[in-house]
Structures are given as C-alpha cells and as structure tokens.
C-alpha cells in the first residue's frame, strides 16, 4: 500500500490523527494520591436524574457507605469515598457541561479511610445475571469512558435484546489521556475478569477488546490476561481519533453500522469501557462500590505528569499540586483536549467520568483566530459520521436551524474532528452545540406549549359543558315546575319527555 494508500486514501477514511501527547505521562508508574482533607461528591455524576441524599449533615460515614440513592429508572447511587463526617450538603461548582451549580455532599475525612462492611462474591459467574445487574447498580458503576451511563441499565438492555457480542473499549483515542492504558497495563486481570462478569450479565457469547496500536504494553498485558479465555479476543485497531467512540469502534471491529435511529444493542453489540469492566470486577469480587478512579494528569503546566488513583470528589487543585505546577495553567480541562470541558477554576471536584485533568500552558491553550471558510472540504473528509460540517455551520450562521437539522445535525457526535482539521480554524463544533441546544429548547417549548394549549382547551370545554348542563338542568326544573302546576290544575302527570336534553359535547369550539 504505502504511497498508493497515501495518495488514494487511508484506512479508516474518517477521523484525524492528532499528536497524542500521551508520553511521558502514560509510562510513569501509577501513583496513589494522599488522602485529601475534604471531598466534595456531586450527586449528578451520571446520565439520568441526580441521586437523592440519604445522610444528614454531621453524620459519620465509612468509606463505601451509601450517601445518596438513585432517583428514578436511570440514575446511580453515590457512596462515601472515604471515612469521615458529612460537613455540608449544598450547591457547588461541579464539572458539568451546563456550568450550573450542582448539589454535592461534602465529607471531611477522618484520615483513617476505614471501609464499611463489604460483601464480596467468591464466584460472580455463578450468580444469576439479574443479580450481577443489581449489585453493579448498587455499587454505583457508570460508564467510565466519559459517557457515564449507568452500567446496569445497559446490562439489562443487552440481556433483553440478546446481545451476542460485548465490545470492550480500550481505544482511548483522546490525546493526552492514558488512564485506560494504565489500567490495562497494571490491572489487566481485573479488566478481563470484569469483562467476563459483564458477558455473563448480558449473556454475550464473545468479547472483542479493541485497543489502539499506540498502546503496545497494554496490548501485551491484555493478551496475556485473556489467553485462557477463548471467547475473549484482543484486537488491535489503528490509532485514529475518534476510534474510542462507540459507533466507530463497533464498525471497525465488527463491520456493523448502528442505524441512525437505533441503539447498538439492537444490532447485537454492547460497548463497555475497560475501566468500567475493572469497576464491575471490584464491585462483585470485592464488594467495593465505585469510590475512586484513575485520573490522567497531563499538560504543559505540570512538572510530573502521570496517572493517579484518586477518590471521587477530590478537588482538582489537590491533583494539580500532587503533579507539581510548573506555571499557572492557562486552561484547565476535564477530559481530553478534543471533547473535554473547560473547568472554571481548580476547586471543582473530580467525578466518576473524569478520565483526565489537563493543565495547559499558554502555548497549548492558544486558539488560532478564525477566518473565512475556503470550502476546502477537510471537515467533510474528517467527519466520522459522514456529515457536511461546513454546510451545517453556514445554515446555523444564517439562523436556519431547521436547514441544519435537515442535514442530520442530530447525528453529530460532537467529536471535534471538523474543527481540528479546519485550516481557517472555524469553531464548527461550537456552532453545532449551540444549534443542538437551541433545537432541543425549541422542542421542549413546543411540547410545553402543546401541553398548555391542550390544558386550556380542556378547561374551556369543561366550563362550556358545565354551563350547558346548568342551563339544561334549569330548563328542566322550570318545566317540572310548570308541569306540576298544570297537573295540580288539570290532574295530568308531568310530561318529562317534552323536555329536550341536549347531549353534552366534549369538543370545544
């Protein structure tokens, strides 16, 4: 291939190949963060409704105690990340794309880090699949790759739709991040055990572990750990962003495409991240809820970039100090550089989905000024979804949101490839987030208006009906009175049937 491939195209034909900046952080051994004094645990660390606190201020908790319970079908519980005292329950700035304050439980650590009573299972594979779901849900395990969808909800979906293939996402295509790489290198057996438990929970026949070819050590470790299990295959995939996106990984590993209006489970696959699998292992084999995670600390403003094991709720500033601050970070990012969110300040805590905290120096944070579109088509070629970013952006610019929606704006996964390649540095993704937000607000308003209108109409109809019924009743009474009077005079019984009773109508005019 070589030159021909260069000239004729490449495989896969979508995506971008940014500088990965993963080393040296990825190669530094995993460290544990010294226990922070105060932990702030947000109640919304997952997709779905926020958890409901079950503790009171002043209460003492042990590590792993339930402090907030799930609220609704799609939700997840939250557990105490260390032992200590509940010192506050209130709103804080939490890492959330909305930027709005979030409810959080603050724990002042007692320093002992004493575990609550745990209930390990010796052989999870002997449990009923439903029981695995139940325990996973109770342990507060959510998708740790960044999606933070409650894991057990996905298990149940997979079981219901008889998913045959579990895809284990070890892609980690975001530059700078290496938390998944580290967990595969250091805890491969936990990952493989966890994924076998997940397979059992959903009834999958095979598992495909996709790892990008820029992580040779992880590939070796995972191959060794999976060697004994024939139905678990480690597959090397090309390092290309966004390989770690579910749809792209599914396509690369199985050749299947998830239809636009369907879920992956409907084509027989389910994707779980490697770190999620490891969390399932800990939840089942050790009875430990999800209270800590590996976080990549990286970026030019840090002196000792690397991966740390940190309790959920650790303030970002503690992590930065641990990694050594070289200069005042020009930008703090939670997650990777392609899709991560900007942190307003360093006091926000890390959450379950926090795969990395990046402290960019001034050079890394430099945003080139945007120029006019030269219609070069780079964005179209880079888009992993086959969309037309320039066309959508120009529609949005002209306030033609419906036009953009007609170009399948809703299919955009927000990966940022288009903006990354644009030679004019047009912030295309920002157009798309704006338009998606605006369209969903409109849709919500439309639904609300429709509901209000329906209620108003119902009320008007009711009032009309009542008025009519009243009139009819009055007419009847009048007729009765007249009849009685007449009867009293002529001895004729009252003629009820002479009174016409109009049937009440539901339809208002």
């Amino acid at each position, binding site marked *: 291939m070589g030159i021909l491939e260069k000239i004729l195209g490449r495989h896969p034909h979508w995506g971008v190949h*940014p500088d990965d900046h993963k080393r040296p952080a990825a190669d530094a051994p995993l460290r544990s963060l010294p226990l922070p004094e105060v932990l702030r645990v947000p109640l919304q660390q997952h997709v779905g409704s926020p958890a409901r606190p079950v503790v009171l201020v002043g209460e003492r908790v042990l590590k792993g105690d339930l402090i907030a319970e799930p609220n609704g079908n799609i939700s997840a519980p939250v557990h105490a990340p260390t032992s200590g005292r509940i010192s506050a329950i209130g709103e804080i700035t939490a890492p959330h794309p909305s930027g709005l304050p979030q409810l959080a439980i603050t724990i002042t650590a007692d320093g002992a880090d004493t575990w609550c009573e745990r209930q390990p299972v010796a052989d999870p594979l002997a449990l009923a699949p439903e029981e695995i779901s139940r325990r996973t849900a109770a342990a507060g395990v959510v998708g740790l790759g960044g999606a933070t969808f409650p894991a057990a909800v996905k298990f149940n979906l997979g079981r219901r739709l008889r998913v045959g293939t579990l895809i284990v996402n070890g892609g980690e295509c975001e530059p700078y991040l290496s938390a998944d790489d580290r967990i595969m290198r250091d805890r491969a057996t936990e990952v493989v055990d966890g994924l076998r438990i997940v397979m059992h929970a959903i009834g999958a026949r095979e598992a495909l572990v996709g790892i990008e070819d820029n992580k040779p050590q992880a590939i070796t470790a995972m191959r060794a750990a999976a060697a004994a299990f024939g139905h678990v295959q480690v597959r090397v995939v090309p390092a290309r962003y966004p390989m770690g996106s579910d749809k792209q990984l599914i396509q690369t590993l199985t050749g299947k495409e998830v239809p636009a*209006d369907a879920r992956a489970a409907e*084509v027989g696959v389910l994707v779980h991240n490697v770190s999620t699998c490891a969390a399932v292992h800990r939840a089942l084999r050790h009875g430990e809820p999800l209270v800590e995670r590996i976080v990549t600390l990286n970026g030019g403003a840090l002196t000792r970039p690397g991966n740390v094991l940190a309790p959920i709720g650790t303030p970002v500033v503690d992590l930065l100090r641990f990694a050594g601050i070289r200069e005042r970070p020009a930008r703090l990012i939670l997650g990777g550089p392609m899709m991560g969110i*900007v942190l307003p300040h360093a006091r926000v805590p890390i959450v379950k989905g926090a795969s990395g905290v990046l402290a960019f120096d001034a050079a890394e944070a430099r945003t080139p000024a945007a120029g*006019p579109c030269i219609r070069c088509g780079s964005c179209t070629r880079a888009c992993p979804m086959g*969309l037309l970013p*320039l066309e959508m952006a120009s529609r949005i610019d002209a306030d033609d949101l419906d036009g953009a929606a007609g170009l399948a704006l809703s*299919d955009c996964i927000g990966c940022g490839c288009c903006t990354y390649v644009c030679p004019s540095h047009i*912030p295309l993704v920002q157009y798309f987030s704006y338009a998606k937000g605006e369209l969903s607000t409109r849709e919500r308003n439309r639904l609300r208006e429709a509901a209000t209108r329906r209620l108003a109409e119902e009320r008007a109809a009711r009032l009309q009906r009542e008025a009519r019924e009243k009139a009819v009743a009055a007419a009847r009474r009048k007729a009765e009175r007249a009849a009685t009077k007449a009867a009293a005079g002529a001895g004729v019984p009252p003629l009820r049937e002479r009174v016409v009773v109009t049937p009440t109508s539901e339809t208002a005019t």
Partner: protein
Amino acid sequence: MITPRHVAPVAAPHAAGANSVARVMLWVAAALLPATLFGFWLYGWPALHLWWITTASAILGEALCLRLRRQPVRASLRDASALLTGWLLALSLPPWAPWWIGVVGGLFATVIGKQVFGGLGQNLFNPAMVARVMLLISFPVPMTLWTAPIPLLSANAPGFVDGLRITFGTLPAALDAMSSATLFGYARSELSRGVDLLQSLAATQAPPLSLVGERAGSMGETASLLLAAGGLLLLGLRLITWHIPFAMLATLALLASLMHGSDPARYLSAGTHLLSGGAMLGAFFIATDYVTSPNTSLGQFIFGAGVGFLTYVIRTWGGYPEGVAFAVLLMNALTPVIDRYVKPRIYGRDRHGRPLEIES
C-alpha cells in the same frame, strides 16, 4: 463566517491541527515554482516581468477591496490567496504580453472575480479563469500572440532592460519577430485551410510537441511535466485529492483517443491533448481550487470529468483553440448543483438519509 456569532469563549476541541489557509496557499505556490522558473528561463525576462506585474496587481486589487470593505488588510493578505490568484493568471497569459494585460487581468481577478462576491471563499467562479476569459474576449489580439521559446542566456534572448521594454511595449519589433503559433492554434488554422493533421503536423514549420515544453504557449502550458510533478506533490501532501485531476485527465485522454482512433487526420492524439494547452495546470491547480469545486469525493469526480469533457469539446469544436478556462468556468457554475445532489452517505443512514434497516 468571519466572526462566528454562536461561540463560547473557549470550548472543545482544545487542540488544532497544524493546517492553515496560508500554509495551503504557500504549498500550492511552492508546487508551481519549478514550472514557473522553467517558464522564466524559456521565455526570458519579459515573462518574469509579466509575472510580477500580474501578481502585484492581483494583490493590489485585493488590498484595495479589503480597505473599502473595512477589513484587516495585512492579516487577510497574509493568507496568500491573492498572490496565488495572480500567479495562476500569469501562468495562463502569453509570456510576452504587454504590461497592461497583467494589470487589467490581475485587478479584474481579485476585484471582480473574488471580492465582489464577498471575498475569500465566497466566489462562484475561479478568479484567475474569470480574468483570463475576460482578457481573451476583450483583447483577442495580444492574448493570442505567442512567442517561440528563446531561452534566457541564449544568443538573441532579450536582456533585463530589453525585457522591460518588450513588456512595456516600447520594442514591438521584437515581439513580431518572435511570434509563433501554439500547437492547437496551428492545427486549427491548418485544418480550416483544408490541410489535414497528418500533413500539417508532419510539416517542418509545425510546433514540436516537446515533453519538456520547448514550444510556444503560456508559461503554464508548456512545462507540463513540471506542473504534473507539482501536482503530485500536492497529492502527496494531501492538499488535494486525486478525484478532480484524475477524472479530468482521464476523460480528456479517453475522448481524445477515441476520436483520434476514428480519424487521425482530423483529431489530435491523446498525448497532444494532455501535454498541450492548460490541461496539466488546469487539472492540478485550477480545477482543484477549493472554493469553486465540489466538496465530496464523488462530486469532485463528476466535476473533474465534466471539465475534461468540456475541454475536449471546446478545443475540438468550439470557437477557441484552447478550452480549459471555459470548461472550468462552466463546471464552476454547476458546482452548487453538484454539491446539492451529491452528498456523502451518513453513518447509520442510507444514501437518501433514511436510517438503515436493523438486520437481524
């Protein structure tokens, strides 16, 4: 889209690729350089003078318009797009054309061809080709007065000063002495005199079809191989894709071979078509202009094939011996239509945008 309105101060992605508009334009200029230098050598000082006059005029026109539209002049000029427009125009002119051809053409290209539409990225037609066609229609005589190659440093090549005098029209005798016909022009006029190609091309006064380009023509038409090499560089750098150049050259070659095969006395061969006129310049540098060509691979393929087809038709049956500029402009007009109907298939959807069926 110069100042995006719906934009948060900072948002993902927090990384940008190394590409920029200036980088693209400067690489394209670099790819043109070998052929241009060869052209300077082949046609001497007048060619060089015409080149700088044309590019300077194009840049001047751009700067004036930016000024009038109250846009940052320096920052916008730095993208080098005006330089490239002027350069491409210069390469398509007769090398000894008078100075005012360069001035009028250069100004026209950026002012009318580009800024009137709204500036970079907004123009429907390729600015350099708009200017070339305008010049050809308005000033047919100087635009079809070609010179035989007279390499720099050769015995009777004009020096620097004489070169200036030729360009500025104070040495008309020199031009008359050197005038020559392009291969297409010659073949066409001989054909119209009733001399068929088999005879006319065998005659001694026929312009040779030289691979390295030692013959009459514009700078950008004779050095076909150097232009193709520049084009391959752009392909290798992935600044252009293969669809347009391949589709255009293949269509042109196919038609030419078919017609030549059917009647070699009336139709020129595929080789002649590929190596003469603006075929190479057009295929790699002009038809591939981002702004005025379709955005999808399939669209680009259709566009390229269309340019190739129209080029052949105009060259063979049209009123002008050379057809690339007209063919490009005609296809430019079709670009919005192509972009409207040819769209990539979206992941998870069929070609019509309907969600894929779930296979069981």
